[in-house]
């Protein structure tokens, strides 16, 4: 008997609003039409992937006070897209990013319970915690949340949502014409939320939707260890991945959790070729497409804090000094650097030593790795990462909409299946089944337990 191999978990990320999505290719389709979402979801399900992953944005990004127009702009609303995908898929998990700052627990708990019911137990919530006033300007409360309170609010929001999901017993809907449903009231009073009442939505097949979390700070890792079922990480190199994996998993025993109750799934990209050289050349071409000339200048402007449009992207780095005070030149996305001066100095040195143009440099400093090679090589690598605890699998981020994962699903996934590292069939109907996660204890017992705990 051989020891069963650790199983690889794979998700499909829908490419949209980010600097890696190449929209200039003739093969690039719509990031809005439902047909694009349907294609990626159906092909992911045909390949038996664990889930489909959708990001969210609540304000259009701005650069120098205007809408940033060099990347894809615009996207549909997360949860309605996932609800629609529930109609055209049967098993695939449906993961939606929903902000914990600009939503209320009663509403968001109800939406995810609904999605779980409408999908037959495939809903997951990726919690993000942006508190910024820029995004807040689209909401009636505005940018009300101090940065340091973002995880406090998120934790309380999740605690309330869980209490609401637990307020219906699994068998609350009797379906007995002589009887009827009986429910129990939920009450919660905390620093961020005062919530009381009878929750209107039945408990979904999973009990609780699966919770994803993507924070990387110490606070974010603590929050994930305490709360999440899956960590969506950015640590996609082997050694970095192993360190992150160990750090997060080591936080679990003290919280009474088993290691396998929390999956760590980095985002990664895959570039395939018939040979290693062929794949490397394709990867180089893709990087050139991802970093256009104007895109390279805009990237530098985010670091310099000054207008650099007069500079040639194929020429040397700007000779002007950065404006340290102008931290908000780009809004609506994570800043690249806190203090630009040492970064600028290092980049100048590197560009000079390696004879790099602005665009070459930006390509060099924004490359995040990912797997490049033949399908066999990439399958080997994915399996190595998982068997050696650099991750529990990957969220695959393609650079093209909607066909960007077609080749990976057709070639790499079957190789993983042949190795016995990836399922050939779904073991059960729910996302919890795919991820090997326990179903939370039902209603009354779980809620009684929660009543005893401080929240937040």
């Amino acid at each position, binding site marked *: 008997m051989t020891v069963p191999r650790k199983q690889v978990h794979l998700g499909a990320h829908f490419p949209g609003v980010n600097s890696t999505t190449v*929209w*200039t290719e003739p093969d690039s389709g719509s990031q*809005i*039409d*439902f047909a694009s979402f349907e294609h990626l979801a159906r092909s992911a399900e045909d390949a038996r992937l664990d889930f489909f992953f959708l990001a969210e*944005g*609540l*304000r*259009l990004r701005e650069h120098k006070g*205007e*809408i940033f*127009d*060099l*990347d*894809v*702009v*615009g*996207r*549909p*609303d997360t*949860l*309605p*897209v996932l*609800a*629609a995908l529930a*109609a*055209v898929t049967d098993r695939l998990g449906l993961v939606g990013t929903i902000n914990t700052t600009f*939503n*209320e627990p*009663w*509403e968001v708990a*109800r*939406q995810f319970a*609904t*999605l779980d*019911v*409408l999908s037959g137990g495939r809903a997951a919530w990726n919690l993000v915690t942006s508190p910024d006033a820029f995004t807040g*300007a*689209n*909401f*009636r409360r*505005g940018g009300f949340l101090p940065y340091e309170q973002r995880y406090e609010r998120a934790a309380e929001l999740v605690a309330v949502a869980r209490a609401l999901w637990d307020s219906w017993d699994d068998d609350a*809907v009797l*379906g007995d*014409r002589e009887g*009827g*449903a*009986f*429910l129990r009231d939920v009450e919660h009073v905390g620093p961020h*939320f*005062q*919530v*009381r*009442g*009878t929750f*209107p*939505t*039945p408990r979904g097949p999973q009990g609780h939707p699966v919770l994803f979390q993507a924070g990387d700070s110490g606070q974010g890792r603590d929050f994930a260890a305490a709360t999440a079922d899956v960590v969506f990480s950015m640590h996609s190199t082997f050694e970095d991945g192993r360190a992150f994996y160990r750090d997060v998993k080591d936080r679990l025993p003290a919280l009474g959790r088993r290691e396998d109750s929390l999956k760590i799934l980095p985002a990664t990209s895959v570039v395939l070729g018939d040979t290693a050289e062929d794949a490397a050349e394709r990867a180089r071409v893709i990087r050139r497409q991802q970093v256009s000339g*104007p*895109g390279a200048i805009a990237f530098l402007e985010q670091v310099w804090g000054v207008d650099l449009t007069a500079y040639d992207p194929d020429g040397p780095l700007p000779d002007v000094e950065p404006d340290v005070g102008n931290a908000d030149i780009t809004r609506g996305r994570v800043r690249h650097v806190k203090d630009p001066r040492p970064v600028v100095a290092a980049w100048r040195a590197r560009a000079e030593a390696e004879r790099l143009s602005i665009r070459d440099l930006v390509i060099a400093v924004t490359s995040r790795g990912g797997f490049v090679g033949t399908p066999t090589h990439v399958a080997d690598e994915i399996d190595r990462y998982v068997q050696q605890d650099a991750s529990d699998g990957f969220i695959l981020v393609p650079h093209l909409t909607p066909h960007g994962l077609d080749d990976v699903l057709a070639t790499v996934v079957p190789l993983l299946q042949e190795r016995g590292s990836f399922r050939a069939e779904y073991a059960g109907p729910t996302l919890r089944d795919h991820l090997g996660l326990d179903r939370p204890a039902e209603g009354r017992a779980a809620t009684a337990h929660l009543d005893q705990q401080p929240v937040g």
Partner: protein
Amino acid sequence: MTVSPRSTHLGLDLSDAGPHPEAWRTSGSEPHRLFDPERLRELVDTAQRATLDFVLFDDAFALHTSRNTTLRGRLDAALVSARLAPRSAGIGLVATVDTTHTEPFHVAKALQTIDHVSHGRAAWQVAWSTSPQVTAAFGRKQVQDEADAVAEADEAVDVVRKLWDSWEDDAEIRDVATGRFVDRDKIHRIDHEGVRFVVRGSSITPRSPQGQPPVVVRATSSPARAFAAHQADVVRIAVTDRADAAVQRAEIRAAAAAVGRDPDEIRVLADVLVVLGGTAAAARERLALLDALAGDARRPDGYAHVGTAAELAATVEDWTVTGAVDGFVLRPAALHTDVDGIADEVVPLLRAAGAFRDTYPGTTLRDTLGLARPASRYASAIA
């Protein structure tokens, strides 16, 4: 095609098991499937076969205020509409979304997305809440009276419509030569600074197939009627008879004209509770059974048709031909019984009389309702 000036508009309320609180207890109701999306899909299929204008889902943040022996429990109506969109065509999907506790920014992008997914079949029934229970569930506002909640709904619709207009139709240009994905001069901040909301914009979601999905308002009170006249594309009225309907329709049209709107761009639909039977006596027996289960005769306000399919078809034709209403929102007392009766008996009679379409006139709900697609208010500002 049989579209004529005499053609009526018909919506179908698919909320719960039917508006009668005991509908789920009668035979054929399949109570174990009340939250099953496939059950809803089957009902939508039936409505689509009958080329009804739209199906409609009520919603609220509170559980129904009824006894535990009656149907309780609700799914989010916007997500239900989205779930039904890919497996339907032609028929409009009207989702109820609250404005008292929901952010207009969230409402705008949710409805735009359903419109994208359905290729132009989304609509929004605007709801507001004066309930202390819902206020407590959110815990961040004081209880509002109806006038206040409706005033807030009116402003929320303003915000949402501005967000729907915030992208011009051709904002996405994919200009490879300059590297610009959009023409940012065609994406507009709304900069709404009103009484209740300050919202910057733009929507994150590009303009949807209908530009603005139709807005449906139930004109159930004096503030709601004024709001409907100001904002609604489709107005639902509760009526006692044809004469009452005619008076209400005329009042709404006059009130709309008074605020500068074209009354012909508004559809006024009367709510009717539908209890069908092979004979009038059989229909009355069905209703008596439902009332007996409830222990009393509670039912929605307004006109009820308790009788045969032929009688209902005659009423629909009569009220439409005489201009009392533009159509009806049919509220089948028990979905599992009366939806089939509407599709298989009432609609064929109306079609035979030339009083209802036998195909959809276009692809969008605005096409079906005969409502023009609005231009973005910001487009003209540029020109």
